């Protein structure tokens, strides 16, 4: 139960950070990516701030723990392979990020504004998630067809 509260509170703090950091302003994100034009480096400082705190706590404290404080075990991915799937996925994400200036976190935080671009983005993002998973399950089932006699 307390885990749910922490989940809520931490996510709220995360969302506030996203808003204060400027990530809910698509124009700021796009300016960050507009290196040949009106380059705005502010988002770099969001990353610097976030990574500084996170990495300090991670290496000084969390990495030494056998289990998290309120859960039975850590559930962090152990996947370390760098493959084409990761790279293409990241590239597609990056292009979408550049086109809309939005990524999942800021979009969800911005939902309360009910602005049309955000709503359209979120619906399409949902569709994108489903599309990928449908594609994957189709590919997987195609690969399991019985061999020809």
């Amino acid at each position, binding site marked *: 139960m307390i885990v749910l509260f922490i989940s809520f509170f931490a996510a709220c703090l995360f969302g506030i950070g996203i808003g204060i950091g400027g990530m809910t302003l698509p124009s700021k994100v796009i300016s960050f990516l507009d290196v040949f034009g009106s380059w705005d480096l*502010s988002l770099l400082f969001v990353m610097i701030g*976030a990574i500084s705190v996170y990495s300090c706590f991670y290496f000084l404290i969390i990495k030494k723990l056998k289990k998290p404080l309120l859960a039975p075990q850590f559930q962090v991915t152990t996947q370390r392979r760098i493959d084409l799937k990761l790279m293409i996925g990241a590239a597609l994400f*990056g292009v979408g990020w550049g086109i809309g200036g939005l990524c999942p976190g800021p979009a969800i935080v911005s939902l309360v504004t009910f602005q049309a671009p955000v709503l359209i983005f979120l619906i399409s993002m949902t569709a994108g998630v489903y599309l990928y998973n449908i594609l994957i399950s189709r590919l997987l089932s195609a690969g399991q067809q019985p061999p020809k006699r």
Partner: protein
Amino acid sequence: MDSHLFFMPFIGGLCIGLAGVMYLLFCGRVFGISGIFAGILLPKQKDTSWRIAALLGLLAAGALLLFLRPSSFPQEAENYSIFRYILAGLLVGFGSQMGNGCTSGHSVCGISRCSPRSILATCIFIFAGIVAVALMKKMGIAL
């Protein structure tokens, strides 16, 4: 360059980092929003309750920001391309699933843990974004 241009973003980053730390320290999970969202859409295990709590937290943050710092959000756009946001959303949704994460998961939580996958993913996010923005400008699309 104004120092205030970087101060608020840095503070925002501190909040994000702290929140991510809380998640990992207490709940043992990486705060990857695309994963949290997808886990609600396509539940694989019976662990939707903390995801919903997280989603509500993000929405609550939005509400707080709307009332206390409305400049966090853009002004309502009069002219916008529906197609642009459909394409952006599809690519972000599809790409985050394929790449196992988005900027919160890879760029914050992953890089902080020195994950080579996340470092590479973030570099690719940014590079692809830069190319997309440059191409849009070349095509005369208003940014």
